[in-house]
Structures are given as structure tokens and as C-alpha cells.
């Protein structure tokens, strides 16, 4: 517990030592294949253009919100650009920890001159957020389950159908997405989902639906868990980020297939911490201008199956850099995959996340 | 008492012990210990004496041979069924129990009633003159008091045999002498048999009926204290018990009990008791006690000449270190009396001895 309490402050204290030098730029991201794709698509070309700049990678995105808050309170923010999911960006913006961005002056227009605000469109979900990719939380299932008798899941409700599709499921240990899926499979119309969830009865309804499979669920808290469990045969179906499933299916060649039905779109992108000194801010903005232009976003899709956030990038998405397969069909935004989709409702969840999380955790524990 | 038990309480028969399967720490040990006897195993550390005690107590199995207790073989009897009392080197009083609880422990495990046990504990504490200390913890007692409690605990369940493993080693000199007397006294008044282990020869001489001198896994001599001192059977015993002067030489003739020896360094021809010196031509070590040297007498038998190197005044006698033959550690105890003229350092004077006082022993 003590380590918990000191964690944030200690992190802030330690970073005092590693205060960035003038030519260093600290970029925070998620690590793994995702950071690798950014390295190839953004960092390497940027450093080639600016030999005086060294980009330092920090894999702290999972704790970015807490760490940024601690740094800001300690008055020493050492990060220059931070990769976060949109919900965290909204939180950071609300807390005054991320600076506001004017897309039309700070970001590159599309090659045809369309201003950035139009090119990103609805994906600019917060004043502080620069979208980078569209990813989705969706399901993968094993294709070799004997008990299923040759049937394969066709829609999201297969997750709740333990008679036809027996076996363990892997779901994220938080209410977001799970309660939406539960309501959809409990007969709630897609457009009514959040209205229903806004009532206590609606929450009960969603949890009751989840309760029907509670004994069959193994809960995950890190994105790598479901792919691992699917590969190990620990679960037969499970939710995770589509890029993780892509790597299980196409790179590791595991007997796993995608279930795209009612995938939940979410955004990941950049924020710039509030209150950077002028020189570092200028550098960070310069990097962002470069790294979020149309070509760069399309380039990233060569290395990982997440959709570029700009409309103008979509036509430029090509083949996977190593596997040589067309990436477009693996994008969550591909029309064949996007028959039924939900977009993460940032506004609603910002208001209700804490409350619903308490109920969800209590429901889990009892 | 059973028919076969005779009057030996303990018997070791060809007992051998090895810890590593390569060397023997006890080589063919044989002994009969009489009922009521105070027997001491004496020897330098590593000589095997404690191992013998542990085999008797049951904490170490004998590698070969048989040990009998009251005529019964006990090699397969676990220690707690042997009924032998034991006093340990550091007392081994249970620190979490009071003195009274420590004493009651052997009675409790034997299922004795509380009333009987209380009475016995009380008596035992009186025996060691600590009647008011029953409620204290061992740590609150002085070393001597702990020692007495340890003795009382080993005796409280009235064993026939008590083993003591260097019990006085941790006490200072005065206390040790006091305790020697006390243990001796308890032994005499209770008539219990005691097997006592020590490396301190004066302690052994003071207390024992018999002493087994150990060296290198072998009993060098088993005898009463005065015999050990007066008539050591080999050089080790002569050296180990009391002070001893040694001179090396070659046997030229053995005539009955007397051996003629030519000293190596000076060529002097002397006579000694032929105890353990082999035959003609063998090397031998002559052993003479310092108080048996005749000094300053031109007519002494076996006369040689010695040079005074050092004089130490000790009140009742003067300790005189001399150079005699090849030895410059030749000690003579000169009584502090008018009959003896004052010696001076550097003075050359004759020394000699009566043939019966000089023993021709083995070479070490």
C-alpha cells in the first residue's frame, strides 16, 4: 500500500534526474508492436530530417494519466508528446494537464488542402486530442472447438450463447463495452443503449445479462491477455483490440478468427502536456505536425492493423511491410467489417464511468 | 535389578564410530563402568570422548560394536527411553520455561501427578541450594546457578546414570572449583553413577574414581587418578596429565624391570623403569616428574649436569627451568626450604633421579 501511495510522487521525483536535454524529445507510448510501428512510421523519418533531435521512447502510456498528474504537481513535466486513448485525453484535458490544440493552425492539412479539422472530422473528441488511429475492441474465437459442432459465431450474441458455443470467454474487467454488448443482446435497440444505461434499471438489466455467463468468464485487464489465452486454448472466445488479434491470426498463424460484429470503435492519439517551456513546445508541435500528416498516418498501417484517423489517409493504406498482405481488409473501418459498429461514447462514459465502475466491481466481487 | 546386570552399569564392547565412512573418530572402544562410579573421559578436543558420551546418550549411533546399559544392549533404544540424565555443556536449560518448569519437565513427560512432581522439584532445588529460585527464568540466573539447575534437572527423575558433557567449561576458575566439589558431593550422597567428559586434567583428577584418557580415538590409559599420574603407561598420558620432563634416548639393554638408556644429546647412560620402551636398540622417551628431580647432589643416581635458565618464585616452591641434554624446558620444582641452597641463573649444577621415578616410554 505504501508503495502505491508513493508511486506517483516517487515517479515525479525520479524524473527530476532524467530531465530532458535540449535536443532530446521524450515520447510516451504503449510499447510492443505499437511503439515499433510508430518508430518506423514517425520517429525514424523525423530523426532523419532533424539529425539534432534524439527521440527517447517511454512506455508509460498505461499510467500516463496518473504520472502526468504527479509530474504536473511536482512542477516538472519531462514528457513532450504522449500517446493516450481518447478517454484519457478527455480526462487529461479536464484536469488541465494537456494543452488545447487548434487543428487548423497546428496540424497539417490534407494533400488536397482540406483543413485538418475537416479531415479528422468527428474524431476530434476533445480540444486537447490529436487522433492518430482508429482501433476497435472486438472478438476473436478459436476455429477448432470440437464442442461447437462446426458452427461458428456469426454475431455478438454468440458470446452470451453458452449452449451453442460452450467454453470460457475472456472479457475486459471493466463495464465499458461489456454493458453495451449485454444490452444489445438483451433486445435493446442500438440507438437506445445509453438512454437505457442512464437508468439504474438499465444498469441492472445489463449486469443481469452478463450474469448469465459470469461463471464462464475470465476477466482481463491487459490487452495481451486475451490473445495469449486464445492461443493457449484457455478461452474459446474473447474480446481485445483488433490489432492484437491480427497478430495472433496473421503473424502467429493460430487457429483464431475475427468476429467483427458490434465492434466498438475507439481512438488513440497524441496529447501535448500543458505548460511545456517554449523551446520544447515548439519541437513537440513540429513533431506532431509531421507525424499526423496524411502520408505518415497511412504509413503506420503498414506495420499494424489499425485504421488511420484521417479520411485522406484511407486510400493510401497499402500492404503489410513484412507479411506483404493487403491491410485494408484487416482494418476495422473496412466496410465488410463495419456492418455493425458502436463508437465509444466519450461524453457519457466520462460522466458515468466512476459510478458504473463501482457497481460493476461490486457485481464482480459478489 | 535383573540377573544379567552384574555390577557394571555401562559396558562398551568393541565400539567404533565414523562420521564420514573414511576415518574412525572412535577406534575400538571397550570399557566397563561400575555402578556408583564417577568415571571421567579426559582428552584433548577431537579425541573422541564426547562422541562416546553421545553414543551412550543415544544421540549418535555406534558404527560398530554394542553398548550395554544395565546389561541390556541399547543400540536400538531411542534416547528418551534410556532413562539417562544428562548435563550439557551450556546447560541447555529451556529458556521459555521457569526453573521449576524445567525441573518438572522430565517428571511431566513421565506422567507424574502434579503434587508428586512439585514435591520432587522442591527437593531437587533444595539439594542444589536454590529453593527460592523456582519462579525465575534461566536467563535471570547467574552461570553457577544455571549450572546447579542443570544438575538438578538431570537428577530430578532419579536416573541411575548421569552424563555430564564439560559442564563447568563456561564458569570462571573459582566457581568451577566450587562446583567440582558440589558435584562430587552430590555424587557421593546420591550414589548415582556419573560419566563425565572434560578436557581439563585437574578437574578430572579432583573428581573421578577412574579416568579414561582419550587420544586419537583410542583410550590411552584407564586408571585411577593417582595411578595415571604416578604410573603413566605411555608418553601421551605422561605429557597430558600433570607436568613432565622428557629426554630422548636409545635403549641399550633391558634387565627385568630396568632399562639402560643412552641419552641422545649427551651420551649419558642412565637407568629407568622399562614400562613401554621395546627392546635393545629401540628409541625411547624418558619421563620424570619435576618434583622427583634431585638437584645439587653430586652423589645422586643417574646424575647429569644442568644449567639454570630461569627461576620463578612461587612461594612454597621455586620453579627452575634448566638446560639438560637436548631439552631446555627441563623443569625442576625446588622446595622452598633451608635444605636447598639458593640457585642462580647461569649456574651449572648436577641433577639426577631415582631409577623408579624415571619411566622409559614410547616415542611420540
Amino acid at each position, binding site marked *: 500500500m505504501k508503495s502505491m501511495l508513493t508511486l506517483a510522487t*516517487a515517479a515525479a521525483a525520479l524524473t527530476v534526474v532524467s530531465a530532458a536535454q535540449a535536443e532530446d524529445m521524450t515520447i510516451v507510448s504503449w510499447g510492443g508492436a505499437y511503439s515499433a510501428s510508430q518508430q518506423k512510421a514517425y520517429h525514424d523519418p523525423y530523426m532523419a530530417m532533424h539529425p539534432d533531435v534524439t527521440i527517447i521512447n517511454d512506455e508509460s502510456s498505461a499510467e500516463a494519466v*496518473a504520472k502526468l498528474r504527479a509530474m504536473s504537481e511536482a512542477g516538472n513535466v519531462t514528457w513532450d508528446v504522449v500517446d493516450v486513448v481518447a478517454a484519457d485525453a478527455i480526462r487529461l484535458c479536464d484536469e488541465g494537464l494537456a494543452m488545447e490544440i487548434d487543428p487548423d493552425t497546428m496540424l497539417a492539412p490534407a494533400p488536397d488542402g482540406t483543413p485538418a479539422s475537416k479531415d479528422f472530422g468527428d474524431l476530434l473528441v476533445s480540444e486537447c486530442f490529436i487522433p492518430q488511429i482508429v482501433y476497435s475492441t472486438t472478438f476473436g474465437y478459436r476455429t477448432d472447438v470440437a464442442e461447437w459442432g462446426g458452427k461458428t459465431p456469426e454475431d455478438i450474441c454468440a458470446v452470451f450463447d453458452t449452449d451453442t458455443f460452450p467454453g470460457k470467454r475472456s472479457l475486459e474487467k471493466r463495464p465499458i463495452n461489456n454493458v453495451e454488448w449485454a444490452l444489445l443482446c438483451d433486445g435493446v435497440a442500438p440507438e437506445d443503449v445509453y438512454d437505457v444505461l442512464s437508468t439504474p434499471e438499465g444498469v441492472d438489466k445489463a449486469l443481469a445479462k452478463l450474469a448469465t455467463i459470469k461463471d464462464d468468464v*475470465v*476477466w482481463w485487464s491487459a490487452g495481451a491477455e486475451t490473445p495469449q489465452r486464445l492461443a493457449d486454448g484457455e478461452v474459446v472466445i474473447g474480446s481485445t483490440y483488433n490489432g492484437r488479434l491480427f497478430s495472433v491470426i496473421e503473424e502467429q498463424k493460430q487457429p483464431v478468427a475475427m468476429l467483427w460484429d458490434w465492434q466498438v470503435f475507439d481512438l488513440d492519439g497524441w496529447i501535448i502536456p500543458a505548460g511545456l517551456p517554449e523551446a520544447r513546445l515548439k519541437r513537440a508541435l513540429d513533431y506532431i505536425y509531421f507525424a499526423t500528416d496524411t502520408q505518415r498516418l497511412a504509413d503506420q498501417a503498414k506495420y499494424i492493423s489499425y485504421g488511420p484517423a484521417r479520411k485522406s489517409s484511407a486510400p493510401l493504406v497499402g500492404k503489410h511491410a513484412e507479411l506483404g498482405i493487403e491491410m485494408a481488409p484487416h482494418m476495422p473501418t473496412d466496410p465488410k467489417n463495419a456492418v455493425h459498429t458502436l463508437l465509444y461514447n466519450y461524453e457519457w462514459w466520462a*460522466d458515468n464511468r*466512476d459510478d458504473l465502475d463501482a457497481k460493476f466491481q461490486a457485481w464482480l466481487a459478489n | 535389578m535383573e540377573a544379567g546386570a552384574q555390577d557394571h552399569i555401562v559396558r562398551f564392547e568393541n565400539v567404533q564410530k565414523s562420521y564420514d565412512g573414511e576415518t574412525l573418530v572412535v577406534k575400538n572402544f571397550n570399557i566397563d563402568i561400575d555402578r556408583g562410579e564417577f568415571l571421567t573421559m579426559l582428552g584433548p578436543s577431537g579425541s573422541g570422548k564426547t562422541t562416546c558420551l553421545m553414543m551412550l546418550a543415544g544421540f549418535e549411533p555406534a558404527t560398530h560394536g554394542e553398548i550395554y546399559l544395565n546389561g541390556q544392549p541399547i543400540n536400538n533404544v531411542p534416547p528418551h527411553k534410556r532413562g539417562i*540424565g544428562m548435563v550439557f555443556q551450556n546447560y541447555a536449560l529451556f529458556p521459555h520455561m521457569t526453573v521449576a518448569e524445567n525441573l518438572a519437565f522430565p517428571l511431566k513427560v513421565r506422567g507424574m501427578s502434579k503434587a508428586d512432581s512439585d514435591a520432587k522439584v522442591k527437593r531437587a532445588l533444595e539439594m542444589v541450594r536454590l529453593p527460592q529460585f523456582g519462579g525465575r527464568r534461566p536467563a535471570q540466573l547467574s552461570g553457577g546457578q544455571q549450572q546447579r539447575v542443570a544438575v538438578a534437572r*538431570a537428577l530430578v527423575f532419579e536416573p541411575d546414570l548421569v552424563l555430564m558433557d564439560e559442564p563447568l567449561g563456561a564458569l570462571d576458575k573459582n566457581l568451577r572449583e566450587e562446583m567440582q566439589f558440589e558435584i562430587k558431593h552430590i555424587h557421593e550422597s546420591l550414589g548415582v553413577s556419573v560419566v563425565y567428559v572434560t578436557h581439563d586434567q585437574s578437574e578430572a583428577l579432583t573428581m573421578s574414581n577412574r579416568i579414561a584418557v582419550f587420544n586419537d580415538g583410542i583410550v590411552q590409559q584407564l586408571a585411577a587418578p593417582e595411578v595415571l599420574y604416578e604410573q603413566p603407561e605411555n608418553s601421551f598420558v605422561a605429557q597430558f596429565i600433570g607436568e613432565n620432563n622428557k629426554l630422548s634416548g636409545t635403549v641399550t639393554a633391558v634387565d627385568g624391570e630396568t632399562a639402560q638408556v643412552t641419552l641422545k644429546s649427551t651420551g649419558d647412560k642412565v637407568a629407568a623403569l622399562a614400562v613401554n620402551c621395546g627392546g635393545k636398540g629401540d628409541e625411547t622417551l624418558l619421563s620424570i616428574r619435576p618434583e622427583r628431580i634431585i638437584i645439587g647432589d653430586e652423589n645422586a643416581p643417574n646424575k647429569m649436569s644442568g644449567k639454570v635458565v630461569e627461576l620463578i618464585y612461587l612461594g612454597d616452591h621455586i620453579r627452575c627451568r634448566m638446560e639438560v641434554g637436548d631439552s631446555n624446558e627441563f623443569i625442576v620444582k625446588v622446595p622452598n626450604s633451608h635444605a636447598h641452597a639458593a640457585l642462580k641463573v647461569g649456574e651449572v649444577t648436577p641433577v639426577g633421579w631415582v631409577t623408579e621415578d624415571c619411566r622409559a616410554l614410547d616415542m611420540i
Partner: protein
Amino acid sequence: MSDTTAQSGPMLAADGTPLKVSLARALRRQKLRALMLIAPLFLFIVITFLAPIGDMLFRSVENAIVPDTLPETVAVLADWDASSEEAPGEDVFTALHADLLIAAEEKTHTRLGSRLNYEMPGISSLFRKSGRKVDDMTPGNYKEQFIAIDKDWGNVDVWRTIKRFSGDYTAGYFLASIDAKIGHDGFEFVDEDQRIYLFLLWRTIVLSVAITLTCTILGYPVAWILANLPLRYSNLLMILVLLPFWTSLLVRTSAWIVLLQQQGVINDTLVAIGLVDDLNRLELMHNQTGTIIAMTHILLPFMILPLYSVMKTVSPSYVRAAKSLGANDWTAFWKVYFPNTVPGIGAGAVLVFILAIGYYITPELVGGTSGIFISNRIAYHISSSLNWGLAAALGVVLLSMILILYWVYDKIVGIDNVKLG
């Protein structure tokens, strides 16, 4: 000499100063030097440990953000009767407008919104939305304009929440940490479907006790062997005991996942030798069993080491003495050896228990839903929900729990009876 003893007053040193003063002066330098030696560590602890903890604990009651962001509103709102069923009047909204104008300028209104959202869902977006539009308001008739932005401004519960949390300090976090709140009628527990912290606290204690027990049962024989083997073997074994310390916690936990999962090594082996049916593989993780197994392994050295060092000090002659006095093996162990190792068990148990009660990574990974600890919620509130006030309050509750248990332990076993060797 003789003249100092002849005096009737205090003893004097040779130079005539009182002996006590002289002694104190002589000792002062020693004390000063001793102080200088511990000063670096002391400062280090104060700066890196006590101060941050104190700061975090302070957050569990700190609530200055509300009066700081809405100073005028809070002042005017004091006169509003919270039990009325009507939203406050125009004066409060006028003050709110003035406060929000400044807050929106300084971007603090959203932060206030997140703070109050912990108490009432929806306030976050209410403030975010209103902050965006407050600039465009025309003077006068503010109540109407605010309600036009969001009808929630007419909701009495919103105003009750603001009023209830308008002080510089609040007990709200502590109440939340024991599943309670100050409702309309004073103290009450939250709805049954939201109660979790007391339950988790209880489970944390029960599981920690279970882990401590398994560590004791498994560690005792190992410590005994370590203490009684010849040095060259015991050193080797000691390395094996310490081996877990040399691997990262995550690696060890992942290893346990590989072993314990249903398609894991243990289940595979049991199925292969026919002890377990392939269709009914044992559930060894994602539940309390997993947490107990993995944490026992991780914490075992903390039990073995103090036990070992205490056992080292227990002379083997105690057991021999007991046997020579007629005790069989069991009695000698139970009545003589064991009581002398209790201080080691005590030290090990305190260490293991306190470490266990604060663990969260291992329970998070192998504990599923039934094996997680209260620390997992603290971690969630620190890193995810950013509700540091609640996290701090939970931390205080956990800390007080440990102190209470420590006190109980002292009463039952006696803290003097704890030895690290």
C-alpha cells in the same frame, strides 16, 4: 579529589563546573556525531517517504477545489435551504456565472467537474458543457440561461451535492471507503449493489491470513532443514530459497500463469496421469486459489529467512536435553523446540502479512474476480479514475487496519516476542 568529595553541593569536576554539566558536555559531542551519522537517512526518509505519504493522506480529506473554484457561489449557497425541493434562486446563479467565467478562463471548471462527478454522475459533463458556453451569456436572468444549457442546473440534487462538498475539508472520501455516504438524511450506507470496499477489505485480510498460514506451514520445515544442514549444503539450499528474489515479480507471476491455467502444466500433467478428467480440468487460477498459491510462493522467503535466523540461535542441545529427560520426538519438538521458534514465526508472519495485504500485481494477474485485493482498487483509483482522494482514504483505512492488527498481535503474542535472528 579530596576537596570535591568534601563539598556538600553537587559533585564538581576538576575545573569547578558541576559534574553533570561536565558530563553532558562531554557526551554532547558524541550525541551530535551520532545524530550526524543518521541525519542523511533521516532526511532521505522524510523527503522520499514520510512527506509524500503525509501529502497523500492529506488528500483523503482535502476538498479545497470546490471553495477555490466557486468562491462566490459557495458563499451565496450557504443561505440556500438544502431540504427545499427547489433549485436555488437567481443570486446563486449570478455568483455561479461570475465564478465560472473565471474558472473557464483558467480551465479549472472541468477539474471541478471531475471532482464532483465522483459524488454524482453527470456533473462532469455539466461543467464541461457550461464552461464552453458561459462566455456567450447575456447579463441577467442567469438561472434561465444555465438551465437552457443543461436542465440539470435545475436539479436540486446537483445543488445539494455542491453545497455538501463546499467546505475546505470533507469526510466524503473516508465514507466512500467504507461504502457509506452522507445522504439526504445524514449517514447511510450506499446501495447494496455498489458496496465493495468493506467486503474487499475483509477479503484482503482473510486471504492475507490464509497466505501467512500457508507460508508458515510450508516455510517451517524448510527453515528447519536450512538451520540444521551442514553449512555447505545449507548455503546451496539458501540460494534456492533466495532465487525468487532474483527474478522479477512479473516473470514469476507469469510463470505461475503458465503452470496453473486450465491448459497449463499442472492440469496437463494431472490429465496425462489420469487423475483429472480432460473435460473437468481444475480451476487453479483466476480465483482465490491462484492468488494464494502465487503469493505464497512469492512471499515464502520472507517467512523462511526470519525463521531460519531464529532457528539458528536455538541450540540443538535443547532438543537433546528434552530427549534425555524422557521426551519423545514429538514432545521434544512441540514443548521445547517449537516454543523457542515462535519469535521467528511472529516476525515472519508480521512481514508476510503486511506485504500480502498491500499486494496488487499478483492478485490482478492470477486472482480473477474472487482473488483480488483492496490494493487493486487503490491502484485503479490512483492510475485510472484519478480519484486520489478515495485512494488515499482507502490507504488510510488499510494502514489503520494493519495498526489495529499489530496492536492485537502485541496483546496476544507480545511484540517483544518477534525476532529477526
